């Protein structure tokens, strides 16, 4: 069951990559492609080459943050280019510094990532407010932003506690955490990719 979920989770970014094939300049499409490449690389490093995939995971987290912040900036949630160009480098710098000085570049910075997830949750909430304020579409299901925002919200809400408690639970009970990771995180990751696929299938304009 675990292997099946892991395989589905690794392959799931291909679904938004496929549905968004005609919108290859869309940031969510780029993100999905990065997610797939990162998952494959981590799998190869860990299972085939028996190397530490921490660096790749940390790099992916940073890339994910830039992608999501850019997505929210393009939709007007981050109010201006200036704010985007201040907030994003500051957040990247904080994550890098936190990783280098309190964890290690070879180790997954789960604390830092939890903070990132909180920022995604807040931006998603602002995204919903934006949807309600603008009312661009008659049926909300037709809005690509609604699905993209929902994907980020569900993923961030689901993954937040898993990452927050990883460092505490994993050393004590690795087996239990493994189950939580497989049935919890992987499920949210698959859900996120399914919702991103819906968002990219709705897209009409390049973001």
């Amino acid at each position: 069951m675990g292997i099946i979920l892991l395989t589905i989770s690794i392959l799931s970014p291909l679904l938004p990559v496929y549905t968004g094939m005609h919108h290859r300049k869309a940031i969510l499409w780029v993100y999905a492609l990065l997610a797939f490449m990162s998952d494959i690389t981590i799998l190869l490093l860990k299972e085939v080459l028996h190397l530490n995939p921490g660096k790749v995971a940390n790099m992916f987290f940073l890339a994910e943050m830039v992608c999501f912040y850019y997505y929210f900036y393009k939709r007007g949630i981050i109010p201006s280019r200036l704010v985007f160009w201040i907030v994003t480098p500051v957040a990247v710098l904080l994550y890098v510094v936190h990783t280098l000085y309190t964890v290690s570049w070879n180790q997954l910075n789960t604390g830092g990532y939890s903070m990132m997830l909180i920022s995604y949750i807040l931006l998603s909430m602002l995204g919903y407010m934006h949807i309600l304020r603008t009312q661009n579409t008659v049926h909300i299901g037709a809005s690509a932003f609604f699905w993209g925002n929902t994907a980020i919200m569900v993923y961030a809400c689901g993954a937040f506690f898993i990452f927050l408690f990883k460092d505490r639970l994993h050393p004590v009970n690795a087996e239990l955490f493994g189950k939580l990771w497989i049935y919890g995180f992987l499920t949210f990751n698959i859900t996120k990719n399914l919702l991103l696929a819906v968002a990219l299938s709705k897209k009409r304009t390049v973001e």
Partner: protein
Amino acid sequence: MNDVSIIILGIAAMLLMALGIILFVLMYQRRVIQSQIEIERVNKEKQAELIHASIQSEEEERSRIAAELHDDIGAHLTSVRMYVVSAMNKPDNQATLQQARAILDESIKKVRELSHKMQPGMLLHLGLVASLASFAKMVSQSGDIHVKLHEDVTLLPKLNETVALYAYRVVQELITNIIRHGNAERVDMYCQVNNNMLLINLQHNGQGLQQADFERFIYKTGASGLKNLVNRLSLLHADISFSLNNENNLYEIRINIPLKPTV
């Protein structure tokens, strides 16, 4: 409580929050759409009602003209014909000819009044102010009511023909209503231009309408005159308000007409 329970509870709480937010967004959006649909429906109904009122008013006007032509002018002309036939038989009968001339004069006056009501030619040549002054004079001649147009209106610039005609019709309808339903003895009419707006203010001492009454009437079946008035005002992008001035106890009707409307 161990860490696993906290994680599971935390995940559940976060997911519930996410679900709650999503549901709220969906329900709120649905409610907004429903209210927009309702507003659209009411607007369509109102529009249909206004069109209906406009057609009805046109039909009523035609009936009125037909009745006036048949009962009044037709009867006058028949009488004149009788007098003329009688005069032909007795050429020296001056009294009969005098009678015929008096009836013809009366008929000419009636035709002129009717024509003036249908299309005030003065409006095209002399403008809104002169036409309103003439209308006020004509109404005052009845002796039952005194309508006065105040002097400052001479400052009014030359208006677009449609604006002038619609404004004239609106004032005409309002004064007719004041005479018919308000039992007023005096009407004061003020016109001025302010910030590219034509402001017409009617004050009368009869029984008038207040804003709530007016809004109730325009949604009521009948009241085609008022609906027609609303129709004309909406074409001018103008607005109208009704109130009672407590200081002088006079009813006031204020009309604001933008001077560059899209008609």
